C-alpha cells in the first residue's frame, strides 16, 4: 500500500512539475485497475491543488480531470458529491484553470450516480461564474455537452429550475459561431422544446437567439475533417424553430420576410420550414398570417425559374391546407379551411380560363397541391374547379387549348395519398362522373394526337378509382381503345393507348376479353391489314394480359399467329414473328406473380411452341420449304419466352418440364407435344444434321432447362452434358454450337461444386485447349482457368482480337443463360474479383508486348473496365489512367470508343488522379474530335463537354485551346456530331466568363 502511494506520488509529481503528459494515462490505468483510489489521488494532488501558482493548480486539476474522464463510471455517489463541490468552487478560480475544470465537470455529469440537487447547483454555478461566449471553442463545447448530459439524466431537476434554465442557456448560446458547437446548441434547444420545459417569459428570447441563424448559409471549408454539412445544420435548426407552436407568432413573419430574399437556397429553406410548421401548428397560430403566407407562396410558385423553389412552395401550401383541414370546427367560428381555400380559388381560378397564357400551369399546380392535401380540401376545390374546367373545355374549340385544359383536369382526377377517400366515402368526382367520361370520350375522337394521349391518361386515372366508370362506360372505353389501336399510327399515341389498355385491363378484364381481344384477333389473322397495324395489335395484346383470365384468351391468339406464320398463310415477315415472340415474353413475365399463368404456359404454350419449331425444322430438312420459324432471329426470340416462363415455374411443374425437355432432346420422345405427327426417332443433338436445321433447336433446350430453379434435378445430366460438349465442339453451324455451349455453361453453372463438377470441367478444359473452338463455352465458373489460355491467345496475332472480345463476354451479364433471372449461381462481386486478379497481368502483358500486339491488351482492358461498377472504377482509375490514355491514342476505333464510353461517366465526378493528367487527356480527346468514325467523334465531344464541369481553376487554362479545337466539328458533315459540338462549345464559352458558371 505504501509502495503504491509512493508510485502515485511519483506519477503526480512527474505530471505536475515534470510536465510529462503521458503520466495521466498511466494514472488513470492505475485507478481503473484498482491500484489506487480517487481519494488517494486527490490526497496525492493535495499540494498542487492548493498551490499559490495558478499554473501548478491548473496542472493538478488537469490530471484529476483527465483521470475522471476515464473512470467516471466507477465513482460512488459520495465521491461525486465531494468532487462536484470542489469543481463548482474552482469555477471561480483563475482563468487558466477553467478549461480543465470544465473538462472535469463534463466527465462528472456523465456519471449515473449524480446526487440529488447536484444538477441544479452545477448549472447555477456555470451560469453565474462563467461567461460562455468568451471561452475558447473546446470549452464552449464542454458547456453544451454538460447541458446535454444533465438533460438526459436529471430532466426533473432542470425543469424545476423553470425559466432560469432557459435564460441561462439563452445567455450562454448568444453569439455562438462555430458550426460544431451550433449543432450541440441546436440539440439542447430541441430538447428544451420537445421535452416540454417551461419557456416562461423567455419564448421570444429563445426564438431570437436561435432564429438569428435562419436561413443557414454555410459552406464547409474545402478539406473539412469534421464533415458537417449545410444540410445537417439546416435540419437541426428547422427542428428547433418548428418544434413548438409558441414560436409561431415570431417565425411566420420571419418566413414571409425571408421569402423576399434573392438567394434561392434561402427561399427553399423558408418554404420547407413553413411546410414543417404545418405538422406542429394548428389553425389558431396560422390564421393571422394566412393571407401573407399565401401571397408569398403564390408569388414564388408563379414567378420562379427553379423547380426546387416550385416544389418546395407547393409542398408548403399543401402542408398549410392539411393543417387547416385537421382543425376542429366550432359552431360559432367560421371554417378556416373554407375561408383559406376560397382565397386560393379566387386568386387562381380565373387563370385556368386562359389556357394559352403562362400562369395557367402555376395556378393549376397550386390548386392541385391544395386539393391534394386532404379529402375535405379536395371536395371544396373540385366542386369549384371541375365544372369550370369542363365548361371551358366545351367552349373552346382549339385542340391546343383543349389539351391544356384536359392536362390540368388530369391533375385533379388523380387523388393523392392524403386526399384519397377513406372507407365508406365516395370519390370526390362522383358528382361529375358522367360529364368527365363524356369529355374524355369526345377527346378520344379528336384529331390531335397530343389531346388523345392526354385523354388516355385521364381515362386510366378515372378507371383506377372505384365508382367513376359504369359498366357501359368501360365498354365504351374499350371500344374507343380498340379503334385507336387499329386506326392511329402516331407512335406516342399508340404507346399511350397500349399503356392505358394495360392499366384498365387489370381492373376490368371482362370487357377486354369480350370486346378487344376478338377484334384484334380478327384483324391480325385477316391477312389484309398491313404490318404496322398488326404490330400494334400484337403489342396491345401483350399489354392487356396481366390477369390469368385474359392471358388464356390472348396468348393462344399469338400462338395462332405463329402457326399461321409457319404455314405461310398470312405472309408474316421474320421481324413480325420475332415481335410476336417478344410480346409472348412480356406475357410470360407475369408468370412470376401468378402461378396460374405459369401453369398455363407450362401446359399449353411451351409444348405448342416446341412443337411448332420442331415441325418447321423437320419440314425445312425434308421438303426444303423454309418457314420463318427456322430463322435464327426468330429462334433467338423464342428462347426468352420459354426461359422467362420456365424461370417462374414452381418445383413440381419445373421437374416435369425438365424431364420432358431432356427426353425430347436426348431420346426424341415427342409424346408431350401437341398434334403428334412427328417421326418417332428424331435425333436432335447430332451434329450431322447439316445446315443446322435440327441441331440449332438446342437453343430451345437451353431455354427450358437452364432457367429452371437450381433445386430442380435434371435427369441424365451426364449424358446430356456429354452430348452438348460434342455438339459444341464438332458442329460447324455457328448458332448451333454457340447455343450448345451456352446450354452447357448454364448446366455446369447450376451443378453443385464437387468431384463430379471438377471432372466435367477438367475434361472440357482438355478438349477446349485442343480445339479452341469458341470462347463463350467457358463462362463464369470456368473464368479463372479459361483465363490462362485466353492469356496465351493475347499474344497470338490472329486470334488476339477475338480473345479480347472474350473478355467482354466474361464481364457482361449474358442475356440468355447466366443471369439471376434464370436462377444462375452468380457470385457477388465476381467482376471486382476478376478485375483484381487480372488487371495487373494485363498491364504487365501490355508493357512487355511488342508494339503491334499492344492494342489487344488495351482492348481487353477497356472491356473489363467498362463493365466494372462505378465505385470500383473510381478507385481503380488512378492506376489505369496512363493505360487508358494510351488506349485513346491507339488506332483501333473499337478500342477508342469503349475507352471513351468508360471515361465519360468517370469525368462527371473526376478523381484526384485525373488532375495531373489533364494535359494528356485534352490533347488526345481533341484529336479524336476529328476522327473518321462518327461515333468516336460524338463520344469524344461528350467527354470534352463533361470536362467543362471540372473545377474552374483546373480547366480554365485549356479554355482557349478547346474553343479553337471545337470550332472544327461545328462544321462537321454529320448533324449529330455538330449537335454535341455546339453543346460542348457553349459550356466552354460559359466557363470562366461573367454570368457563366
Amino acid at each position, binding site marked *: 500500500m505504501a509502495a503504491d502511494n509512493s508510485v502515485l506520488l511519483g506519477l503526480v509529481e512527474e505530471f505536475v512539475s515534470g510536465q510529462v503528459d503521458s503520466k495521466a494515462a498511466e494514472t488513470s490505468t492505475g485507478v481503473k485497475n484498482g491500484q489506487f483510489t480517487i481519494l488517494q489521488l486527490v490526497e496525492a494532488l493535495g499540494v498542487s491543488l492548493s498551490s499559490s501558482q495558478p499554473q501548478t493548480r491548473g496542472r493538478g486539476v488537469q490530471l484529476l480531470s483527465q483521470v475522471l474522464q476515464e473512470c467516471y463510471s466507477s465513482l460512488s455517489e459520495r465521491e461525486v458529491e465531494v468532487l462536484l463541490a470542489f469543481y463548482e468552487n474552482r469555477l471561480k478560480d483563475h482563468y487558466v484553470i477553467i478549461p480543465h475544470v470544465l473538462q472535469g465537470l463534463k466527465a462528472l455529469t456523465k456519471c449515473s450516480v449524480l446526487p440529488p440537487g447536484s444538477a441544479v447547483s452545477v448549472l447555477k454555478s456555470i451560469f453565474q461564474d462563467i461567461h460562455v461566449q468568451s471561452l475558447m471553442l473546446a470549452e464552449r463545447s464542454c458547456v453544451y455537452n454538460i447541458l446535454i448530459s444533465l438533460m438526459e439524466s436529471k430532466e426533473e431537476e432542470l425543469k424545476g429550475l423553470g425559466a432560469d434554465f432557459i435564460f441561462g442557456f439563452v445567455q450562454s448560446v448568444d453569439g455562438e459561431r462555430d458550426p460544431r458547437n451550433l449543432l450541440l446548441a441546436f440539440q439542447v434547444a430541441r430538447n428544451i422544446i420537445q421535452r416540454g420545459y417551461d419557456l416562461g417569459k423567455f419564448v421570444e428570447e429563445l426564438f431570437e437567439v436561435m432564429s438569428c441563424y435562419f436561413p443557414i448559409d454555410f459552406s464547409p471549408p474545402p478539406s473539412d475533417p469534421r464533415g458537417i454539412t449545410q444540410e445537417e445544420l439546416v435540419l437541426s435548426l428547422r427542428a428547433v424553430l418548428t418544434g413548438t407552436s409558441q414560436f409561431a407568432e415570431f417565425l411566420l413573419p420571419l418566413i414571409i420576410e425571408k421569402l423576399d430574399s434573392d438567394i434561392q437556397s434561402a427561399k427553399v429553406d423558408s418554404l420547407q420550414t413553413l411546410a414543417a410548421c404545418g405538422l406542429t401548428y394548428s389553425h389558431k397560430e396560422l390564421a393571422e398570417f394566412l393571407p401573407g403566407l399565401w401571397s408569398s407562396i403564390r408569388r414564388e410558385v408563379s414567378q420562379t425559374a427553379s423547380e426546387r423553389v416550385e416544389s418546395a412552395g407547393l409542398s408548403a401550401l399543401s402542408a398549410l391546407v392539411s393543417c387547416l383541414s385537421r382543425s376542429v370546427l366550432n359552431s360559432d367560428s367560421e371554417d378556416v379551411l373554407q375561408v383559406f381555400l376560397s382565397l386560393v380559388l379566387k386568386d387562381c381560378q380565373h387563370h385556368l380560363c386562359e389556357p394559352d397564357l403562362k400562369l395557367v400551369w402555376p395556378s393549376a399546380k397550386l390548386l392541385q397541391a391544395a386539393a391534394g392535401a386532404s379529402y375535405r380540401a379536395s371536395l371544396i376545390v373540385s366542386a369549384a374547379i371541375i365544372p369550370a374546367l369542363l365548361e371551358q373545355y366545351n367552349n373552346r374549340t382549339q385542340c391546343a387549348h383543349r389539351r391544356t385544359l384536359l392536362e390540368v383536369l388530369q391533375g385533379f382526377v388523380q387523388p393523392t395519398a392524403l386526399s384519397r377517400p377513406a372507407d365508406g366515402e365516395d370519390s370526390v368526382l362522383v358528382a361529375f362522373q358522367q360529364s368527365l367520361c363524356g369529355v374524355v370520350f369526345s377527346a378520344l375522337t379528336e384529331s390531335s394526337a397530343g389531346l388523345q394521349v392526354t385523354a388516355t391518361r385521364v381515362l386510366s386515372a378515372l378507371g383506377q378509382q372505384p365508382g367513376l366508370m359504369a359498366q357501359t362506360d368501360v365498354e365504351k372505353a374499350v371500344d374507343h381503345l380498340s379503334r385507336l389501336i387499329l386506326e392511329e399510327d402516331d407512335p406516342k399515341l399508340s404507346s399511350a393507348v397500349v399503356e392505358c389498355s394495360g392499366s384498365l385491363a387489370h381492373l376490368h378484364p371482362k370487357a377486354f376479353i369480350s370486346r378487344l381481344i376478338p377484334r384484334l384477333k380478327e384483324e391480325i389473322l385477316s391477312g389484309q391489314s398491313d404490318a404496322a397495324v398488326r404490330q400494334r395489335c400484337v403489342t396491345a395484346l401483350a399489354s392487356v394480359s396481366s390477369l390469368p383470365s385474359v392471358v388464356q384468351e390472348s396468348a393462344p391468339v399469338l400462338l395462332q399467329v405463329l402457326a399461321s406464320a409457319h404455314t405461310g398463310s398470312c405472309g408474316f415477315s421474320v421481324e413480325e414473328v420475332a415481335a410476336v415472340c417478344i410480346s409472348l415474353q412480356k406475357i410470360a413475365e407475369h408468370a412470376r406473380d401468378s402461378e396460374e399463368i405459369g401453369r398455363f404456359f407450362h401446359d399449353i404454350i411451351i409444348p405448342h411452341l416446341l412443337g411448332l419449331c420442331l415441325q418447321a425444322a423437320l419440314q425445312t430438312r425434308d421438303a426444303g420449304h423454309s418457314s420463318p420459324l427456322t430463322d435464327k432471329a426468330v429462334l433467338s426470340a423464342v428462347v426468352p419466352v420459354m426461359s422467362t416462363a420456365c424461370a417462374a415455374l414452381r418445383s413440381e411443374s419445373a421437374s416435369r418440364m425438365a424431364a420432358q425437355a431432356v427426353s425430347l432432346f436426348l431420346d426424341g420422345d415427342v409424346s408431350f407435344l401437341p398434334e403428334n405427327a412427328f417421326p418417332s426417332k428424331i435425333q436432335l443433338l447430332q451434329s450431322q444434321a447439316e445446315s443446322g436445321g435440327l441441331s440449332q433447336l438446342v437453343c430451345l433446350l437451353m431455354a427450358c432447362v437452364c432457367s429452371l430453379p437450381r433445386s430442380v434435378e435434371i435427369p441424365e445430366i451426364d449424358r446430356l452434358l456429354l452430348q452438348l460438349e460434342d455438339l459444341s465442339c464438332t458442329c460447324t453451324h455457328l448458332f448451333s454450337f454457340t447455343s450448345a455451349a451456352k446450354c452447357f455453361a448454364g448446366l455446369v453453372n447450376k451443378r453443385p461444386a464437387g468431384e463430379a463438377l471438377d471432372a466435367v470441367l477438367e475434361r472440357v478444359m482438355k478438349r477446349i485447349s485442343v480445339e479452341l473452338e469458341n470462347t463463350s463455352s467457358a463462362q463464369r465458373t470456368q473464368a479463372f482457368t479459361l483465363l490462362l489460355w485466353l492469356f496465351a491467345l493475347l499474344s497470338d496475332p490472329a486470334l488476339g482480337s477475338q480473345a479480347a472480345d472474350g473478355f467482354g463476354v466474361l464481364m457482361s451479364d449474358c442475356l440468355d443463360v447466366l443471369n439471376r433471372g434464370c436462377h444462375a449461381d452468380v457470385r457477388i462481386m465476381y467482376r471486382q474479383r476478376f478485375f483484381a486478379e487480372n488487371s495487373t497481368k494485363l498491364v504487365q502483358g501490355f508493357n512487355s508486348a511488342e508494339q503491334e500486339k499492344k492494342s489487344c491488351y488495351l482492348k481487353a482492358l477497356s472491356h473489363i473496365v467498362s463493365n466494372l461498377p462505378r465505385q470500383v472504377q473510381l478507385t481503380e482509375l488512378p492506376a489505369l489512367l496512363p493505360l487508358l490514355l494510351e488506349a485513346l491514342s491507339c488506332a483501333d476505333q473499337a478500342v477508342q470508343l469503349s475507352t471513351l464510353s468508360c471515361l465519360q461517366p468517370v469525368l462527371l465526378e473526376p478523381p484526384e488522379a485525373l488532375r495531373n493528367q489533364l494535359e494528356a487527356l485534352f490533347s488526345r480527346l481533341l484529336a479524336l474530335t476529328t476522327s473518321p468514325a462518327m461515333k468516336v467523334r460524338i463520344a469524344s465531344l461528350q467527354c470534352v463537354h463533361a470536362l467543362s464541369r471540372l473545377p474552374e481553376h483546373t480547366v480554365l487554362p485549356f479554355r482557349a485551346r478547346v474553343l479553337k479545337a471545337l470550332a472544327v466539328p461545328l462544321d462537321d458533315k454529320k448533324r449529330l456530331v455538330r449537335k454535341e459540338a455546339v453543346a460542348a462549345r457553349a*459550356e466552354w464559352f*460559359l466557363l470562366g466568363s461573367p454570368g457563366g458558371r
Partner: protein
Amino acid sequence: MSGGTRLENANPLIFQRSGERLLTATDEDEDVADPIDDREIFDILSKSINDPEHPLSLEELNVVEQMRVNVNDRESMVSVEFTPTIPHCSMATLIGLSIKVKLLRSLPDRFKVSLVSSQTHLINKQLADKERVAAALENSQLLEVVNQCLSTRTM
C-alpha cells in the same frame, strides 16, 4: 430574379413546343453529309436561350419560329427574324444580342448572320453593327446577363 420586383409582362402567352427532331436513317449513316438546315439552327436557338424574365424558352414565347429562320448552307448564310414578347419590350435588345452571340458561338466561321427584329429598326441597326456587338460584349455586366440567358436551365 428578385422576389419582390414586378415583371414587365407577368403572364405572357405560351406557345406549344415542337418535339425533338426525329432521327432518320441517314443521320446515322457515316457517308451521307447532312447540310445545316433551318430546323437545326432553330433548335439551337429555341432550346438553349431563355427569356431573361421567364424560365421559358424562346420557342415557348414565340420569339423565334422555325419558319422565320432561313439557312443556306451552300452560300453560308443564316437569317433569323425574331419578335419580342410585347411591343417595345425593353428586353428586345438583350434577346437580340443573346441570339447573335449564340449563333456566333455555334456556327462555323464561314457563315454570315443577319438578324432582324420584326419591330424596331433601331435594334436591327445595332445588331448589324459588328463593332457595337463586340463593344457590348466587352462590357462585363452585359456579358453576364447574356451568359445568364445562354446558360442551360439549372434546376
